[in-house]
């Protein structure tokens, strides 16, 4: 006696949270059954393994059918095939996590081109992170789908994502960061960047979206939140004089040193390194005209600023004091005319650096 066909269809679609998670995590039906058996459900309910198998199969089938709709969550709201109470719909999409992602996974693909090439690497990522390949694929496809939809859209990136994928504000911001990183292809995989979490990058992305993109100046442009403001990057070359002009550099240094004397624990190290640090920060800005250098932004920041400070054991607070003073003192440099540009650059950079500065 073999079961040829075995289905259960409810007027209200039954969704078992645990099975949904197992499915999202990419377990096969048999693995999922094994895991459920281990969870002790058979003892709790007095069910048999066959019942569990049938139940799991059934749920997987439902999820498989739902998946098409989950790809465009507003469709899930309007579709008529599955009757799911609105509260449950939200759970499906977010809290139980069709669009949730693993930190370990996102770190692997952050800033990579969301293309077929990357998709081929998912095998390796799966082995490396211990996340099932299926789950990797889902997460990758989610990134790609969101990217595709909002890439060309006007208006706030976060709002667009929220509207088209019905995600919470928090999750929409994360996706915005992923889209932003993927679009600008920021390098995040280098060894020296390994200490940074997705949260660190997402934080920086948000600041950059707010200040460095087209949308920051003109909200009526296409791609406003996804692409960096090219004009702005071009202009950043002007900052070069801060380090190229020796007088200006000296003046800047003396202003900072005067202000911070006695306030920094690492004052002498700062004093000694000032010119290097300043050169580093300004050169990063000046190089941003080239796409290649844009991609290396985080590598440069870590190399040119985070690492030197860290090797001198600057406390975070000293870094903050220094960066504040460093940005502010420029306003007192009479020979420097690009105050607004500087603020737009340094305001964001300061935020990023503080976030990046940890072990």
């Amino acid at each position: 006696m073999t079961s040829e066909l075995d289905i259960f269809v409810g007027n209200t679609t039954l969704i078992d949270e645990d099975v949904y998670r197992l499915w999202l995590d990419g377990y096969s039906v048999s693995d999922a059954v094994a895991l459920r058996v281990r969870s002790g459900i058979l003892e709790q309910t007095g069910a048999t393994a066959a019942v569990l198998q049938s139940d799991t199969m059934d749920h997987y089938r439902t999820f498989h059918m739902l998946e098409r709709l989950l790809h465009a969550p507003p469709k899930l709201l309007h579709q008529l095939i599955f009757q799911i109470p609105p509260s449950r719909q939200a759970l499906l999409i977010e809290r139980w996590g069709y669009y949730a992602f693993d930190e370990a996974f996102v770190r692997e693909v952050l800033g990579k081109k969301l293309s077929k090439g990357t998709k081929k690497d998912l095998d390796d990522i799966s082995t490396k992170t211990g996340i099932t390949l299926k789950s990797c694929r889902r997460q990758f496809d989610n990134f790609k789908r969101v990217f595709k939809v909002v890439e060309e859209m006007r208006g706030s990136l976060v709002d667009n994502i929220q509207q088209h994928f019905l995600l919470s504000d928090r999750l929409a911001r994360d996706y915005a960061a992923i889209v932003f990183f993927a679009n600008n292809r920021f390098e995040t995989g280098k060894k020296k960047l390994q200490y940074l979490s997705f949260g660190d990058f997402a934080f920086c992305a948000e600041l950059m979206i707010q200040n460095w993109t087209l949308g920051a100046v003109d909200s009526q442009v296409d791609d406003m939140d996804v692409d960096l403001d090219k004009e702005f990057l071009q202009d950043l070359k002007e900052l070069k004089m801060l380090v190229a002009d020796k007088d200006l550099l000296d003046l800047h240094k003396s202003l900072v040193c005067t202000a911070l004397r006695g306030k920094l624990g690492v004052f002498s190290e700062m004093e000694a390194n000032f010119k290097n640090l300043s050169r580093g920060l300004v050169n990063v800005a000046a190089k941003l005209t080239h796409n290649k250098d844009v991609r290396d932004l985080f590598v440069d920041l870590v190399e040119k600023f985070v690492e030197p400070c860290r090797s001198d054991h600057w406390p975070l607070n000293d870094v903050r004091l220094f960066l504040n003073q460093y940005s502010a003192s420029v306003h007192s440099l009479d020979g420097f005319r690009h105050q607004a540009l500087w603020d737009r650059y340094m305001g964001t950079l300061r935020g990023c650096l503080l976030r990046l500065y940890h072990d």
Partner: protein
Amino acid sequence: MPGKLKVKIVAGRHLPVMDRASDLTDAFVEVKFGNTTFKTDVYLKSLNPQWNSEWFKFEVDDEDLQDEPLQITVLDHDTYSANDAIGKVYIDIDPLLYSEAATVISGWFPIYDTIHGIRGEINVVVKVDLFNDLNRFRQSSCGVKFFCTTSIPKCYRAVIIHGFVEELVVNEDPEYQWIDRIRTPRASNEARQRLISLMSGELQRKIGLKVLEMRGNAVVGYLQCFDLEGESGLVVRAIGTACTLDKLSSPAAFLPACNSPSKEMKEIPFNEDPNPNTHSSGPSTPLKNQTYSFSPSKSYSRQSSSSDTDLSLTPKTAPYLQGPRIYLCPSSPSLSCGSLHLKKSCLLLSESSLPPHPSSPVSPVLRKSVSFSEELFLAASGMGSGSAGKEGGPFKALLRQQTQSALEQRGGSPHRFCRRREFPFFTLTAFPPGFLVHVGGVVSARSVKLLDRIHNPAFVGIMGNTRSYKLLDWNSFNSDEPETRDAWWAEIRQEIKSHAKALGCHAVVGYSESTSICEEVCILSASGTAAVLNPRFLQDGTVEGCLEQRLEENLPAGCGFCHIPYDELNMPFPAHLTYCYNCRKQKVPDVLFTTIDLPIDATVIGKGCLIQARLCRLKKKAQAEANATAISNLLPFMEYEVHTQLMNKLKLKGMNALFGLRIQITVGENMLMGLASATGVYLAALPTPGGIQIAGKTPNDGSYEQHISHMQKKINDTIAKNKELYEINPPEVSEEIIGSPIPEPRQRSRLLRSQSESSDEVTELDLSHGKKDAFVLEIDDTDAMEDVHSLLTDVPPPSGFYSCNTEIMPGINNWTSEIQMFTSVRVIRLSSLNLTNQALNKNFNDLCENLLKSLYFKLRSMIPCCLCHVNFTVSLPEDELIQVTVTAVAITFDKNQALQTTKTHVEKSLQRASTDNEELLQFPLELCSDSLPSHPFPPAKAVTVEKASPMGEGNFRNRSAPPCANSTVGVVKMTPLSFIPGAKITKYLGIINMFFIRETTSLREEGGVSGFLHAFIAEVFAMVRAHVAALGGNAVVSYIMKQCVFMENPNKNQAQCLINVSGDAVVFVRESELEVVSTQQPTANCQPSCTGGEVTT
């Protein structure tokens, strides 16, 4: 009454991509009704087109309105090649044809394609303007309300319950037409869907006509079924109960009723002269049935037509007719239709007295029927099976005798006869309080038939000789075919009727009919519960006042229906009677089987549970007659075993009555399956069931003895455990009054079979396994061993779960509003090697048990919960495949109040009963005083408009939300029950009756058979919900999946499935919300009363 149908196509969404190049679609819509087609403009390059079309207007007569579905086709425009169809929507506009129901259909409908399933949605608005037309020869029956619900719908009151209506129509099945070889599967499927839609429309219209002829205004318990007979065609048949319903205008108070009746009257379009006499013939006393009895006959007989259901009234068995009152029928009108009925009666006689054709070697008419009631098997069987020929005579004589006696019992008067309803059957399973007087037991009949091709003159073969052909031809009015099928059913109904009579009952309630078809063999089955009814509700008030008085007075609370209707001294079968444990006045049987729901006033101890008997029997593969003979030979044994199993399981549960009994016999190529489901309860009025004793055949063997005693202990333990589980603690009965509570050893069950085969002897088959003790199971071979084992293998549901196949679970009355309706389908493949009956039984048993276990597991989050209306259907799609389909609803209940005593429940229901009765009596008075002087509205059309406004606005208000971007789809509840717990149904919007076909040629890609069927059932649910929502409703009650025919061909990667569902679309309001409404009501009620309580929806 012609009408104007108006359709507007608003928009589409989520359309599929039809143009790969642009990833878009150029969609337009064709709107077709009858032979007229309109088209919208092409909306270029969009998956969410906004057509916003003009109103397409169809001017049609109401006959078409009733028959034809509105057909909407969405297509992709293609400049160079033929336009591609995206999909279709069929909309049944019937709900728009009766006032009171929906006034507009508006909403998003899934666009359905038989190959691809649902492909996007379309927003459509449909309206109908009906013009009043008083043509009495019209063929339409607009205005008759249809309900699937098998009780009086919640916001109505039954004024009169007229009785049985039935009809069937046949056609060729498009799937089997020659053209099917050259057209695409899609075209063939669509032809089939359309045809069935047309046929159901026609069927409904014809039934409606019959109801109008009976002066009714509604059909309750409407059950429509399809018989896919394959080569021989397609039969659509329906049965129902004609009623005159009156809308309770306010859910809170009955006061407004004084206004509404007059209005009601006009809503019956036929009532050109709203005649108050219909209901009350003047006598100022509102007393009892007298008021109903007089004048109806006048208008009524005048209109009787060629319809084959006799349009008449309750037949009474002879004893009741001896009273002082003679029938009140005026003779003249009845004469007008006398000839017709005489003809019919002749037919009955001639048919049955037909001498067998001597030269015909085999008579292919095979008929074996068995029926039983309680522990009785009363079988009149075999109109010449197998060997045929010679034994036909005696049997036919018997049949003739039966028929004659039936005629005699009808009072011996031709007038009387023609006024009598031919079949006193009621498809209802729950009744107004006081309606059901006594219940006799289950009556059932089956018959095996050979199918033959439609319109083929050779269908002579059906009757076996030319004479019968002539006979039929003489009788048939239009086409030959329906008459044949009609005759088949008439035969069965006749049998049911006579069985009921044998039980001293004049009516059959909870009546249903079904078929099982395999190749060219068809088993027709009918079953019901023999009962004595209170005639007050029936139009014909022939029961004498004094008799009724007696009934009234002696009708004790909660046990009356258990009292035997038959004469104690002249029992139709041996049964063990005791005095009723409740009132101690009347006799009751020790066990009661019924097909109805538990009456609300019944006193039940503890809770009930689902009891199933499952059985398989292997059968040799055979052709035609031989096959039919084999089947008819097996049937009685199956009935017998099913019955034994039920009885054993009932006793094992410590219960004494079965409700909602449904026995399904399914025929396959090489086996027969029997599945009986019922809800067991302990009725306080009936005696405590005795235990089960096991006896061995070989008492000398020591180890065997030991084994037996071990078994006995296990059984006793199970009984004790079950009693605890179901809280069965009957009060101790003092023995002096009742006598020994344990029935005396005696012969319990017997099968009375009149066999026509071989010899003409009448054999008596003892059902009790020997004349031993209370209930003895004799273990004399492995078979019996298996039986006992299988008894014990039924596992009770896990704690927190209850299950029943009736509407509600006795002993639980505090339902919460959380409900979940579901359908589950399983197909197993049997290993074909050396199948034995036992192995087969075990497989089948496991299949059902596992299915139930799965359900309990899946629904565990709803605990404490009860699975209600559990409906199992078995089919045998192929040689080694068994398919079981279950539809049920899980309802959560509040555990804390679960222990509320049944007593208060009963008291409550009794109170309700008594108030209802009073209302009932007052009603005719109110009606006649009010309906005459006040004519607040000009007839029909104005009424429709008037009615349209409040509800219409309500609808739009409701629906104005969904189309706008962000809101979600409104929840539509579905339930097989007639009510929604915690809510009040405020409006019935019309019947939902849908038929879908889905086919695939890429089975593997769609997730195999499970994926395919899962998606299809989900789609069917979606389409039902969409239609209900478009009607302005928020629930479907009395939902039933009548058919789920699944065929696969994995080798070709193909599968096909047909599903037929039906139910009543309703608007419900949560009880909590309702309270607010009803306090506001008085002010609102100054205006037309019927709108009260509906506006709030």
